[in-house]
């Protein structure tokens, strides 16, 4: 019954948006972890070497740069295709 009130609906939507944003962030971090582990750690040692740490940091930044380029290209292409 209380769900029918406008305030509760807005609250529900807001909380869902938050959950979706959190899930998206977790998904992205998972992909960064897998891809950068592949790129930066050749032979796993007994701890992360300094060079490996530096690579991981750069890799994370480059991965997010790459996401930006890919997103932009994709949205441009979508606009071209739906004309």
């Amino acid at each position, binding site marked *: 019954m209380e769900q*029918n009130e406008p305030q509760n609906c807005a609250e529900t939507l807001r909380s869902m948006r938050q959950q*979706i944003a959190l899930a998206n962030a977790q998904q992205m971090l998972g992909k960064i972890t897998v891809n950068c582990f592949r790129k*930066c750690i050749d032979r796993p040692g007994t701890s992360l070497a300094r060079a490996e740490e530096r690579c991981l940091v750069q890799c994370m930044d*480059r991965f997010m740069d790459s996401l930006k380029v890919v997103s932009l290209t994709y949205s441009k292409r979508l606009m071209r295709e739906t004309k």
Partner: protein
Amino acid sequence: MSDFENLTGNDKELQEFLMIEKQKAQVNAQIHEFNEICWEKCIGKPSTKLDHATETCLSNCVDRFIDTSLLITQRFAQMLQKQSSGGM
């Protein structure tokens, strides 16, 4: 009367919200798929920034991947057409 209006309004809003979020999620999934494929193709060892050549590679990669997908889909449609007309 007003309770009934609220029910319909909220349900509609929720339905629209879910549809938009579902579409956003699909676009997001596509972007991640492209990025993983093109990341492998275009980036060797990660450096201090994305140089112009790498950006171009990434951009071309997305377009070529979409072209590839379209080509394969079209060819498959042709194959299905040939099959059905041959069977007749």
